[in-house]
């Protein structure tokens, strides 16, 4: 990364940033850092057959954080005029008033943080969004609509959206370390409404990657169109089944959202540091079958959750939360890493310069096992197969979760039978993890437009192989 490129964008110098971190620590405290952001975001919307609305948005500013032990002071400025940045540093420093310091940050925290990925490797932007005219993007949405309508004559409406962004990020801390990152993102979503003449059904398909306008390929168009109409026959024929406790088989890919919500959040170190997580104090303990390993990975090239650096300047990493059934690591930002006496795991993320970083997931998935998906389904006499969830919610302390089933089937005598809809799966995260009795060999990352909303919105992705949970509550008739 050309550091001067970033210094020029934000119109600051290294000595100026050094002074700013000193100002932030003037009242005391252990650590201060600066987070500069310049984001340009654009979108185009196709509705009623034409791309008739679109926009462009810019966001620019600097966030200043002071840490005093585990306490946080945070303020920001929407410009980088020296006096405004000094004011923000003064506001952030309030946290340290009267504080004498305890466990100071050391360079070694950074040095042990892991291997730098290098943003050039993780998300190259071959065709920069900033150099791409909106007029060249419009035809993609028009072709997508045309293709979707050609695949199913029940389609009555297509709403297609393209959103794209590029963020230039520069981070500097009171140890004098500087990290820079250029983060592209492109997302396409197609929402389709179908009618069979008597009633309507809807379906959505999306793809999102950290990449440039090269995203908009013919293969992406075909993939999205096919997914937008896939399973719609089943949806028209789906019914709400009889509920009860039964085995639940989760299909590979998008079911990974359950892993993210029901288990992943409970591994985030802030909840554990405060004693609120169901996994607090269980490091090194067996939490599930030894065939299971769960990963949070910021190093998948082009992935929506990829981070060359997190938003504290810590290099992106691959972190095993559960390794061979044993709780191996929480997901740390700098605060929790220091508190636990470990290296940060590159999970300190934030929505924008307006927010202080907190532990967040990136791409969360379960590694493949050995069973074939067909054998897993064949082993169930009576249960539910789910291949798409939405609207999940989890209670971090209790671990209780509820997920809405968007798409699934009954399993009867080892075979997929009637399609089901409008039901919820209810359970307890750690219990469900412990109740996984079979892991498929077909792990798949879902590249939809997943966004995690814990206090702030950050892009993530998720994945899972086909797995069977031996018993969960299915809410039906």
């Amino acid at each position, binding site marked *: 990364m050309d550091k001067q490129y970033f210094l020029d964008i934000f119109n600051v110098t290294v000595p100026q940033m050094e002074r700013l971190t000193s100002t932030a620590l003037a009242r005391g405290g252990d650590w201060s850092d600066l987070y500069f952001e310049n984001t340009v975001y654009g979108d185009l919307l196709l509705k009623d057959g*034409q791309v*008739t*609305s*679109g*926009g*462009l*948005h*810019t*966001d*620019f*500013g600097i966030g200043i954080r002071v840490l005093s032990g585990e*306490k*946080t*002071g*945070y303020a*920001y400025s*929407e*410009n980088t005029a020296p006096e405004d940045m000094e004011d*923000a540093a003064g*506001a*952030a420093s*309030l946290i340290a008033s009267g504080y004498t310091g305890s466990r100071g940050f050391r360079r070694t925290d950074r040095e042990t943080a892991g291997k730098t990925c290098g943003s050039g490797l993780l998300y190259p932007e071959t065709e920069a969004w900033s150099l791409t005219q*909106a*007029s060249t993007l*419009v035809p993609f949405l028009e072709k997508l609509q045309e293709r979707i309508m050609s695949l199913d004559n029940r389609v*009555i*409406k297509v*709403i297609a959206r393209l959103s794209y962004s590029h963020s230039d990020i520069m981070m500097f801390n009171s140890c004098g370390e500087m990290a820079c990152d250029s983060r592209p993102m492109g997302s396409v979503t197609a929402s389709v*409404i179908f009618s069979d003449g008597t*009633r*309507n*059904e*809807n379906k959505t398909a999306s793809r999102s990657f950290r990449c440039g306008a090269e995203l908009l390929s013919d293969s992406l168009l075909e993939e999205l169109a096919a997914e937008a109409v896939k399973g719609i026959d089943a949806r028209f024929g789906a019914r*709400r089944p009889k*509920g009860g406790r039964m085995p639940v088989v989760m299909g590979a890919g998008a079911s990974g959202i359950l892993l993210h919500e029901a288990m992943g959040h409970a591994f985030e170190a802030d909840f554990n540091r*405060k*004693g*609120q997580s*169901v996994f*607090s104090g269980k490091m090194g303990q067996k939490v599930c079958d030894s065939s299971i390993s769960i990963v949070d990975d910021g190093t998948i090239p082009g992935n929506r959750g990829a981070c060359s650096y997190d938003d504290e300047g810590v290099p992106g990493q691959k972190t095993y939360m559960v390794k061979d059934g044993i709780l191996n690591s929480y997901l740390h930002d700098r605060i929790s890493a220091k508190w636990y006496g470990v290296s940060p795991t590159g999970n300190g993320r934030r929505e924008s310069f307006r927010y202080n970083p907190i532990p967040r997931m990136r791409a969360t998935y379960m590694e493949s096992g050995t069973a074939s998906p067909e054998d897993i389904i064949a082993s169930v006499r009576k249960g539910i197969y789910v291949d798409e969830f*939405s*609207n999940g*919610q989890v*209670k*971090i*302390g*209790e671990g*209780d979760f*509820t*997920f809405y089933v968007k798409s699934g089937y009954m399993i009867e005598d080892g075979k997929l039978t009637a399609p089901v*809809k*409008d*039901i*919820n799966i*209810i*359970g307890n995260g750690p219990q469900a993890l412990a109740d996984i009795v079979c892991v498929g060999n077909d792990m798949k990352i879902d590249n939809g437009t997943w966004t995690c909303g814990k206090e702030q919105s950050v892009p993530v992705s998720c994945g899972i192989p086909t797995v069977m949970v031996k018993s969960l*509550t299915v*809410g*039906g*008739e």
Partner: protein
Amino acid sequence: MCMEYGMSIGASRMRVSLSKSILDSFSLLNGELDKVTHSADRSLFLYIFADGRYGTFSTNNFSHGQLRQFIAKAIDTVRMLAKDPCRKLPDPERTAKDALTGKELKLYDSEYQDITPEQRLKEAMDASMFRTMEPTAEYTVISEECEYSDSVDDNIVMDTEGFCGRHTETSFAICSEVTIQDNGGRKLSGYWWESSPFLSSLETGGCSRTALEKAAGKIGPKRHRGGSFRMVVDRSVSSRLASPLFSALNGTAIQQKNSFLDGTLGKKIFSEDLTIMDMARTEGRPGSRLFDTEGVATADRPIIENGSVKMYFINTYIAGKTGMQPTVEGVSRPVIKPFIKEDALPEKEKGCLSEEFEINLPRILRLCGSGIYVTGFNGGNCNPVTGDFSYGIEGFAFCNGKITHPIREMVVTGNMVSLWNSIIAAGSDARECTRWQIPTLAFDKADFSA
């Protein structure tokens, strides 16, 4: 300047919305200061109409040179989109003329300007009760997170048809989350909040106590059998059931055939007792506004009256697309009229109910006798096209009007139209601090599974 410049380089119409907001918060963890945040935001939204085309743009970079470049680029972008004759500014006859100072609705507390960091810390400390939370035979307290915040939001909207409106409001809030551990090692959390446009009306004391009571109330949950029961929904979460109605009444959903209330305007499809008003112009109450995002004047008017759908939320664009009469863009401050269905009343109370009669939770629980009292929704969804819903719930079983035990792993399923047809009571106890005035609600024969 923005509008002048935009019009000079090719825009045919423009609307500009300028917002500024400041938020300060002091957060405590276990009674000690944990986080101090100061946020000062500004944003400029540009709605540009050019050559029969339309686009929306925003920036927080206000330097003149940058802004002119941005507007020029925005207009270039608009020109690349398809023409859409329905994109127009609202008719000047429909825009608000009475939002001149921003303070007409009395949502601004001048005391805001004088608050010091020390006062903010004191408010947070006053709300905390961690130091006095003693372990009991049933639980130990794991953590208490308590946050005081205050904010001011100032928004000015102008358009090239001559509209100019301003809305200013302050907000003061306190929230608390308490996590406990029961004797079985199970962690349970409770959350509560209070807010007001006025500092003097903010009740800080008691917030953590309520959160603790909510956490402790969850100890000892039991699985309850599924079936068809009366459902009472607490006023703190009842808006979850009202939200799909307002989404389905939105003009965009109607126009896109993505609404289960498409084709119901003017028709009676809900219970005769159900009346929901949009009381957008009530002074001093959160949610009130004199104009919508287009600048169109709001009005106090019925959304659903005696079970009939009285309005869709139709903005200028959707009006053009559908030929329907424009109304306002979205709901402002919905208020459900309190009632108890006559045939649900005990014989001795029939005909005795006056408008002043208080309808609160204990009364509704007594009225319903037995069933499920819902205090939280956990996941789930409502299909916008069909209105079919399925929500995970938390709460309590009740019998003879008394709460018996917390329940676990239950879902309620049904259809929104059927549900709102089965409503038997709406309380007079909506929380004043909420923008949507949705009170305690009671429904007959809701389907639960477990």
